[in-house]
């Protein structure tokens, strides 16, 4: 290391050089450079090379899987010319419905080929999903929206923080029509969308989280389905002496359907009707022991009646949970989630139900608005 002679008392002096043309010119030049850099980056980011090199894009969402599903759907629509059926819900949907199985079953029964995408995202209750539904329906015009739901969607204490974070997201706000510069830039800059998965590169735990995200990216099918490899080993019933240990519901209150959450369901039904999409609300077939955590079968029945009544009033079709015997224990990864064995069973069931609606009631789910899906 070369050490330049410098007295200890040599305080650093500000530059005394004059700038005859003025600093404003430098700022103008800097602006020009900035525009040039941005144009260069944007141009490079839009090349096929970068698209293939960088694994996935992001809207800067706090929820990695939400980003993943948005871009997967975009890619799905680009590859297939549109989408006919969108399945919306939480993690139970993500691992519980295989669109390929639904398509195949429906095709066998009707001779029509559907384009189905699984938009299940971990932790999203009916409240954020009502916002998701709005954006998805308005952008992709699916012929059918399948909303998969379960009791926790309507528990007022469930997923509040998630909902807040979901709604405060700048890009989401922009998508909902609330203009903000950051949201606009994210929505329009491909370079930024490529950068955003790496935005936390400086965090100590980034290599681990990035690797985990990458793994999810690779295990998620192009149809949005992510198989769950877990297998449920034993069924644990709730301990009446340990209410605080209830992992599913707020144990301090008996379960009840929250009116504001029910309003979200009504909003989705209205939205679908207004946009010409049909809607089927499916109750997720969780393990029967799950209902014991919520207060028993009576509470579950009351929940079913309430949802059925609301869906019918909103012009939708409600499919209550299939008999628990249909899905064996080996088809579940826990009380609520299905695994790779259970998902095809439930998917085939949904395919059959949709086929029945087509064959018996003449309902058509093939989307004519965004491209014909006929082979």
């Amino acid at each position, binding site marked *: 290391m070369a050490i330049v002679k410098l007295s200890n008392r040599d305080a650093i002096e500000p*530059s005394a050089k004059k700038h005859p043309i003025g600093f404003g010119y430098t700022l103008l030049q800097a602006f020009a450079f900035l525009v040039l850099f941005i144009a260069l980056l944007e141009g490079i980011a839009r090349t096929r090379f970068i698209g293939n090199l960088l694994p996935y894009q992001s809207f800067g969402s706090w929820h990695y899987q939400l980003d993943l599903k948005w871009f997967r759907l975009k890619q799905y629509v680009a590859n297939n010319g549109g989408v006919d059926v969108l399945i919306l819900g939480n993690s139970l949907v993500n691992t519980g419905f295989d669109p390929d199985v639904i398509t195949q079953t429906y095709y066998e029964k009707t001779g029509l080929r559907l384009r189905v995408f699984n938009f299940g995202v971990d932790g999203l209750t009916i409240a954020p999903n009502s916002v998701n539904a709005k954006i998805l329906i308005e952008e992709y015009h699916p012929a059918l929206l399948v909303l998969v739901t379960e009791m926790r969607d309507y528990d007022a204490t469930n997923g509040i923080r998630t909902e807040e974070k979901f709604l405060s997201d700048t890009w989401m706000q922009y998508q909902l029509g609330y203009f903000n510069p950051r949201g606009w830039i994210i929505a329009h800059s491909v370079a930024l969308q490529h950068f955003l998965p790496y935005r936390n590169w400086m965090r100590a735990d980034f*290599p681990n989280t990035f*690797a985990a995200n990458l793994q999810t990216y690779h295990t998620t099918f192009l149809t949005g389905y992510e198989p769950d490899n877990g297998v449920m080993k034993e069924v644990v019933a709730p301990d009446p002496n340990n209410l605080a240990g209830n992992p599913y519901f707020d144990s301090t209150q008996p379960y009840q359907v929250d009116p504001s959450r029910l309003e979200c369901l009504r909003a989705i039904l209205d939205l679908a009707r207004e946009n010409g999409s049909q809607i089927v609300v499916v109750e997720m077939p969780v393990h029967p022991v799950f209902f014991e955590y919520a207060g028993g079968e009576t509470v579950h029945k009351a929940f079913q009646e309430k949802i059925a009544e609301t869906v019918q009033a909103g012009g939708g079709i409600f499919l209550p949970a299939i008999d628990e015997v249909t899905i064996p224990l080996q088809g579940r990864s826990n009380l609520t989630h299905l695994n790779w064995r259970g998902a095809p069973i439930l998917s085939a069931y949904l395919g059959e139900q949709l086929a029945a609606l087509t064959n018996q009631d003449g309902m058509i789910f093939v989307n004519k608005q965004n491209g014909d899906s006929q082979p």
Partner: protein
Amino acid sequence: MNITIASFAAFMLIVVLGYRLLSARFRNIWLFVACLGFLITWSWEFVGILLVLGTVNYILGGWIGEAKEGRKRILWIGIAFDVFTLLIFKYSDFYIPELTAFLARIGMEKGSGGIQLLMPIGLSFTTVQLISYLADIHNRIVLPEKRWLKFILYALYFPKLLSGPIERARVFLPKLDQPQPLSAESIARNFTLIVIGLTRKLLIADVLNALIPSAAFVQPLTYSAQMLLTWLLAYAFVIYNDFAGYTSIARGVSGFLGIELSSNFNTPYFSRSIAEFWERWHISLSNWLRDYIFFPLSRLLRKKFPRPDHIINFILPPLVTMLVSGMWHGLSFSLLLWGGLHGAYLIVERIPTLWAPKVLMDERPKWQQAVAALITFSLAVLAWLPFRMDLITAKRYFAGIIIPSHWFKPDFLWMSEVFKGHLPVSDVYGWNIPDPRIFLVLVPAILLDWAQYRHKDELIFLKWPRWVQAALLALVTLGLFLASFADSAAPFVYQGF
């Protein structure tokens, strides 16, 4: 309101425009309103506390100036009041648990939250400035300020409120009456200072800070020595760039108001001795400690022990000065150790002068200067251990670095298996490879300092070709924009003092 956020930029724009458009007699009133506005964004209680503190010192300063007798007594009352205020708020962690317990015993404290005191922002910085004001009046270096508003601005001036620089009244007060006009040069200078500050804070300090896992400073022995060493090195640059970044922004902001603030840092990690380090690190505090602790104590001791090389004269002044520096940062054993270490470094450094005349560093061969710089840097970095963590953890961290068994071989095999997808990523720290991302940030950080050090000019960039300046500015702007998408932002480290 943090000074790195967009709302502060908007606030500053309004303040500067108002200040420049108003006639001279209203400018200080406008500044006072701006100071109050800035403080209120933190807490309205802070306004009250700092106003009382400033007003008491204003009155005491007036009394010292006018008194024919008992000047020293009033000075000590003022110092006691300032130190007491600092003790009450800053060191509340020490006495509040005992006080709460005592009040509970006598039945006066029944609330579940206990007593809580908020430490007003910048109290440590304001207090030492007020002490220097009283001492300077006593020593007839400065006359007491007659106008309350002007004096309060000295105490509350918002660009320097959070983390200094620590200004002297005799230097600062005249600037309030004669702010420098805005010119193309001053705009370029102040703008560049702000850009350098933002770069240091947001692109260097915050990034390096996020790269250090929080567990490293809690359970250091779970990591390998090479990683601990890298993180300690990174922390050294975090604290420096964080603080220097703040000062640079504060100076730039103040410069737009025509009030120049002192420089607080002068490429300290290129120092070739610890004495030089303290001439380059937190310069305004170093000067304060020198003028109000080191010199008075040295003079006092010389009266009792006239020989300059007497062991008491040799040891006590630097040691006490650095211990006070440690205590100023916080009342904890680890900060005392940090101060004590620097005191010890200074003493050891002076030992050769007992038998041989001092040779100036500039006159020594370059290789000696380089070695001296390396040793000084290593000692300064080592001292950050007790500055950052408690004594026990610091000891463990140090042990983690020096114990040979903690120098593990990097596990390249495991790493390659992970990248091939054969193994899941469970813990990247298991690879025992120093994080390359840290070096990616350290290199430009060192280059930034090197450019300033080599040319003895912190604004050397203004002498570079215009297109280079413009390209650099565009890159920094792009970097700041991209950094703003990261999920976390850190407050200034020295704001906590």
